[in-house]
């Protein structure tokens, strides 16, 4: 049973995180660089952080980077640990963690749908949620929904009471 401070010391010894801080009660964020992420996740999984809630992706368009956030939770420590890493926005390539958690293959497929991030090692990458979508992946910040909607669906013309 570790509280947040012990967890932070523990991670500092075992992995060399770029950044780690305690956001608030039982909510800790740690940032690893992307080469050590898979080994870090594997290590944390063995340390009772076995519940992978989900994988999120944030598009930091100013720093031209995607940020992949892996949300882990441990039933012993009762702490939400978010493990983050940044990947380049143009190449947008990353390694799959399918062998750690099989369910991650669908989370990655979902991120591929919305952000266009390629995950090597994850073989079925076809469209999960969208259907023959051939524009820019929609959740990227540079995909403008209003222009797309005006161009594809036209509005109902409200004419007065004639």
């Amino acid at each position, binding site marked *: 049973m570790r509280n947040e401070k012990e967890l932070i010391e523990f991670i500092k010894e075992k992995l060399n995180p770029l950044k780690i801080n305690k*956001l*608030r009660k*039982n*909510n800790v*964020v740690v940032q690893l660089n992307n080469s050590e992420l898979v080994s870090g996740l594997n290590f944390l999984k063995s340390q009772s952080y*076995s*519940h*992978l*809630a*989900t994988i*999120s*992706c*944030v*598009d930091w368009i100013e720093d031209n980077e995607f940020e992949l*956030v892996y*949300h882990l939770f441990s*039933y012993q420590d*009762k702490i*939400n640990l*978010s493990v983050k890493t940044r990947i380049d926005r143009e190449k947008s390539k990353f390694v799959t963690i399918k062998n750690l*958690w*099989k*369910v991650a*293959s*669908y*989370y990655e497929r*979902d991120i591929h749908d*919305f952000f266009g991030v390629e995950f090597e090692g994850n073989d079925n990458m076809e*469209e*999960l*949620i*969208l*259907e023959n979508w051939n524009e820019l992946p*929609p*959740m990227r910040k540079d*995909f403008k*929904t*209003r222009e797309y909607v005006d161009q594809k669906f036209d509005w109902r013309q409200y004419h007065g009471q004639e």
Partner: protein
Amino acid sequence: MDKSKMTEMFFGPNHPGVPGNYGINYYYEGDTVIEAEPNAGHLHRGFEKLMEEREWIKNTPLVCRICVMEPDINEMVYAMGYEAIGEIEVPERAKYIRSIILELARIQAHIFSIGGNCGAIGLYTAMQWGVLARDYILDIFEEITGGRVYHIYIRPGGVRHDIKDETFKKILDLLDDLENNRLPDVQKLIFENPTAQKRWKDTAILNQEDALRLGVTGPSLRATGLDHDVRKLMPYGAYDKVDFDVPVGHNSDAWTRMKLKRDEIFQSIKIIRQLINNIPDGPVTVDLGNALKYKIPKGEAYVKVESARGEYGYYMVSDGGLKPYRVHVRGTSTPLGLYGVEALLPGTRIEDVPVWAHSLGICPPEFDR
């Protein structure tokens, strides 16, 4: 496996037995499913993109439309995320009212899912009685918040307005009515019905090792023997001020999950009674200034709440602006609805596919978003 012997079946979006607008395309041979694959995405409206275009307060009516079965859970998680990033302390009475609303929502969601399970095996009388009982809870919601299903009642900083005393009295009367004459006859019809028991026993098995590996939470996990409940693990609202126990099942089939949901209804009734009896007075919301100018500092938070079907989490990122920078919704049935179909469904029979989907609480708008 050669596809020639197998026939493809679309347990597709347009099918009376499927929960919501969602499809499972599976190959079957004889009567058993050999290979299955989810066909999701029919309810995708791009919530996360829409949320990035709207100010904080404008998202509250949008957020409750993500999952139709439990709109209040989404409102609560959104409000908790906003308050977590903005370090806002909600007044005591608002916490109590929020927990009352969440428990009422849990009761109606459990009754609805028990009804859905009965509909999947043909026990239509129980489904009718269940939806009738649920309707009286919607009347209470309508009296408190003005809306039957979408309430837009829990918002960042507290609750929209206070609950009057006679409404509390009505809630207590409804709970007595539910406990004394509505639920007992549903109990006799479903839980003492030998044919129903035969249909549910040893179907839709989800053992503990699979559940933990997939990240499944809620009644499906508690049916395997672990008493993990976010209300106990990370208490929110007024859950640390009430005592209730978390029912746990032991052999993780559809029958155990049904009994678990029924026990949780009685636990929720107990919680609401405790909450109403010692609710403190005081303001109901924190004054955060002009609603359209809500602003919280740059930061992020992963908050989660125990919905009727498990852990419901939001990952919210704010860049200090008027609009959220990114909101990622983690629905409870995401692991089962997507990967679970491919991994756990092969081997079941055709009759048990709707039982599998209803009893594990697959709610498609959560993972379509």
